[in-house]
């Protein structure tokens, strides 16, 4: 256990730097390759379906085979329609989602980082209780807390405002845990002692020294919270009644639901194209930051 934890810190900073080069080259395994191809096909297949069907018009969706292209190639007209439908409400939803991500995920990461660091580097009364309470609360189904939260928010006039979505997403217990574990090793206590000797204040030390060392951990938490807020569906669904505040997920749900009943207007093609466009930005974010979050995850998973 101790060996593992000690090695965690350096590896975290330079992921897998020396490991591979030292290993002798081996012959490639066909079995492994086939197996991984199967996994990949399984993972990518539904996305492929999404891309193929995003090229079809509403009419062609109803009449063509699901796994191949339809008569025409309507991807661009679908995208244009998605952006223009109902006075461009989709762009509005996109902006809202960004707003919730910036403040929700950003705030959650900030709070988790500062608190996780405090837990890792200070012995203060009530420290253990903090952690027990935070993790115990994770077990309570969020769906069922929706009503009490709604009633509370409503009594202080927060429902149907962006705050109703942002405030609850400021809490990321897993983020707190990850930073805590990460900070324990990534920020050497000796370094902090040295800074204190020099007369730096605690917060100054945190911002000038510790924050930089926590980099990969912060990026990981940031990505996890971005995914969480980007995918947030239930809470905004309950809290918001005005579509002008909807995030993409709730908006797509509404588009999908308008296919039913009196005056039904099915727009399955826009639901599909909109889904595709909801996924693209977050996939890009993942690709760009993958170096960081993968090493950040490592720390969180080794320590138990």
């Amino acid at each position, binding site marked *: 256990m101790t060996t593992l934890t000690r090695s965690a810190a350096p590896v975290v900073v330079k992921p897998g730097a020396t490991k591979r080069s030292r290993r002798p080259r081996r012959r490639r395994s066909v079995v492994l390759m086939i197996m991984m191809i199967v996994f990949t096909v399984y993972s990518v297949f539904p996305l492929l379906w999404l891309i193929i069907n995003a090229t079809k018009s509403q*009419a062609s969706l109803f009449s063509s085979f699901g796994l191949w292209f339809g008569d025409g190639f309507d991807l661009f007209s679908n995208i244009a329609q998605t952006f223009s439908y109902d006075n461009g409400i989709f762009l509005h939803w996109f902006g809202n989602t960004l707003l919730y991500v910036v403040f929700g995920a950003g705030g959650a990461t900030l709070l988790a980082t500062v608190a996780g660091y405090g837990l890792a580097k200070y012995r203060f009364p009530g420290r253990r209780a903090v952690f027990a309470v935070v993790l115990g609360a994770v077990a309570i189904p969020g769906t069922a807390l929706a009503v009490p939260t709604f009633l509370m928010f409503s009594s202080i006039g927060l429902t149907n405002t962006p705050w109703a979505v942002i405030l609850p997403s400021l809490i990321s217990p897993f983020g707190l845990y990850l930073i805590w574990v990460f900070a324990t090793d990534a920020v050497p206590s000796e370094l902090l002692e040295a800074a204190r000797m020099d007369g730096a204040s605690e917060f100054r030390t945190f911002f000038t020294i510790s924050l930089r060392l926590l980099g990969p951990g912060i990026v990981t938490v940031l990505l996890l919270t971005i995914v969480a807020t980007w995918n947030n569906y239930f809470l905004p669904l309950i809290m918001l*009644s005005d*579509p002008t505040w909807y995030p993409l997920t709730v908006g797509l749900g*509404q588009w999908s*639901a*308008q296919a039913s009943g*009196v005056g039904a207007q099915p727009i399955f093609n826009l639901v599909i194209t909109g889904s595709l466009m909801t996924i693209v930005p977050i996939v890009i974010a993942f690709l760009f930051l993958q170096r960081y979050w993968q090493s950040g995850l490592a720390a969180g998973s080794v320590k138990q």
Partner: protein
Amino acid sequence: MKRSTRPAVRRLVTALAAGAMIGATLVGCSSGGGTTSGSDAKTGMAAVDAALKKGGTITYWTWTPAAKAQVAAFEKKYPKVHVKLVNAGTNTTEYTKLQNAIKAGSGAPDVAQIEYGVIPQFALAKSLVDLKTFGFDSLKKDYASGPWGDVTVDGGLWGLPQDSGPMAMFYNKTVFDTYGITVPKTWDEYVAAAKKLHAANPNAYITSDTGDPGQTTSMIWQAGGTPFSVKGTDITINLQDSGTKKYTEMWNPLVEGKLVAPIPGWSDDWYKALGNGTIATLLTGAWMPGVLESSVKDASGDWRVAPMPTYDGTPVNAENGGSSEAVIKQSKNQALAAGFLRWLNDSKQSVSIFVEAGGGFPSTTEALNSSEFLDAAPEYFGGQKINQVLVEGAKNVLPGFSLLPYQLYANSIFGDTVGKSYAANSDLNAGLKSWQKQLVDYGNQQGFTVTGK
């Protein structure tokens, strides 16, 4: 533009003022408890007119596609009134939000779209304004009797009808012709057609049915059943009454024999099935043509409309779907909200916008009887004058049917109970009995006095 609308406005205002006088007197006689709104202590229609003149801002929740054009026309007519239009979701989603806002005590709109089946629920919870306080009971003559009955619950008037859904049988003529099926006039013929069709083509079904509370209750209604009788908080539930049994006796063979397509309504599979001939008939509300025309384009020219089949040759009908708009009690400007509502669902201008936008089948007698409406012969339906069939059907709607004051809950557990019969392709009566049992239990838990028969 402005010049041309002015006289119309003036005429309308005079007409409204006249109506208001009548309304005011009516209120004076009947309830006496007219809401005094604003500083000028007018009551009834006069208060409404004053509020419209004074102006203000109200919020309107709806999911009807016609709303945007309607609100624009209204604001043009009453420039001092601003209507904040919000699509808070389609049916259940909206009701959930509405209930939440009502429970929370704030955040509800001034006017909201509420389907007929849910009116009793909101009315009983005292969440809606009784429009009799504004003298709106004088508008009765403007509406078909069916939808008017739907908004009148327990002696109160809880909304104004927007559209209505007298049932009809929509059938795919191309499919019928291909398999030599004649248009069924009775349910016996309908069941026979179902068998013939499915035998001729195992991929074709007479209709689809995976169990839908609205559909089932409408079918029971059409069979003469009155499973729910509600007097205030005293409720009797009998989902085994003669009408219900008449329906299940007829429908069971279709479910048990797997003669109805197991395709859930409104799914993309369902739309496909309507377009490619898999589903040969639809037993549904008169609002269906708009949906078919806009969303099942593949089948243009194939569909026709016929009256609902009957049990014994006497034409009888029921309703399926349809919405009203209601003024929510939480509204801070009820008179203005009522004014908007009156224009929205009682003015010729608004109703024609609604019909043109494909919002549904109107409920005002004026719209229903206009020659323009009756003589419309859409190409989609092969030039058939479908509205004549539909309007005729509206005349045969059986009176006296009602739903529960906790219909939203009832709908939510329909799949748990009757759905089990559907899932097992077995006797619907078993499912209906278990539905009844849970409804009785729930009602009693909630403080109603519910008897199950």
